[in-house]
């Protein structure tokens, strides 16, 4: 088990990053820190996909000097999936940040507990 961990160190790092991001997302009280945690989780997933998509000894799937055998190239689909994920995560981050800005302008705090207390005071 230990030797596999050393060979697949990219995946191990991705898992650790994912857990760090998830803990941030759940345990932090500050909204901005929650968003940062979600972004760390995103990055861990991209790292995992990119690490899984690469095969040692093969090159990028770009045709130079004629087409070689299928064995010479890696599959570009994991990279495409990572691209999709990056675009969606940019959109989601922008959306969450703008919602956070609106919350801050309404309540003048980013702490979730304080916001909840203010909401209770308003009777919501």
């Amino acid at each position, binding site marked *: 088990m230990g030797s596999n961990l050393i060979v697949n160190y990219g995946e191990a790092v991705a898992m650790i990053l994912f857990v760090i991001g998830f803990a941030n997302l759940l345990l932090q009280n500050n909204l901005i820190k929650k968003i940062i945690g979600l972004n760390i989780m995103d990055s861990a997933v991209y790292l995992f996909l990119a690490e899984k998509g690469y095969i040692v000894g093969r090159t*990028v*799937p*770009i*045709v*130079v000097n004629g087409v070689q055998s299928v064995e010479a190239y890696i599959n*570009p*689909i994991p*990279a*495409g999936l990572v*691209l*999709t994920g*990056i*675009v*969606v995560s*940019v*959109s*989601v981050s*922008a*959306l969450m*940040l*703008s*919602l956070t*800005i*609106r919350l801050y*302008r309404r309540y*003048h705090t980013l702490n979730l507990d304080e916001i909840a207390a203010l909401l209770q005071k308003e009777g919501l």
Partner: protein
Amino acid sequence: MILDYRAFDTFGESNVLFVATITVLVLLHFNKKQSKAVSETQEISKRQAKEAALDRSFEPKNDPILQCVAKFLVPLILIFGIYVVLNGHLSPGGGFSGGAIMGAGLILYLNAFGFEKTERFFTEKTYKWISFAALTTYCLCKTYSFYCGANHLESHIPLGIPGHILSSGLILILNICVGCVVTCTMYTFYVMFRKGDF
């Protein structure tokens, strides 16, 4: 790859970006109008104005070093972005990466020279029209076969020689569309978060 047999996926991504930008526009614009209409207590508005002034004081204003560097860098960054977009089917790169590079160039220009200069050529209207045109072109390029009843995997455009710039049928056009959408989105996000308004 992402623009050939996964083209609808990429179309969805572009639409996600577009929808996110529109939502950000709605959220931040609406707030401004509302806060103007609803008369808040004077203390809060005074504090807000103070905070805004504090924010503004950290922004570069006609910084000579930044302007001099931007004068050299912005054209280079924009040209490199265009190169990445146009060579997307031949080399690493494509619409998303090139669009992000061009957006970064525009943001650098905005930081160096201020909003008055950029508002001459990029306003909300520009964003609306460029995004609309790019998305419509993309949609028409990929879905015309639905209406003509043909198999859309075949291309009527001559394929050309692999390695030349006009060698990949529709992919060049699609790359340009995606690049336009991404550039506008990056720039609009920045402007909205910086100023909350165009």
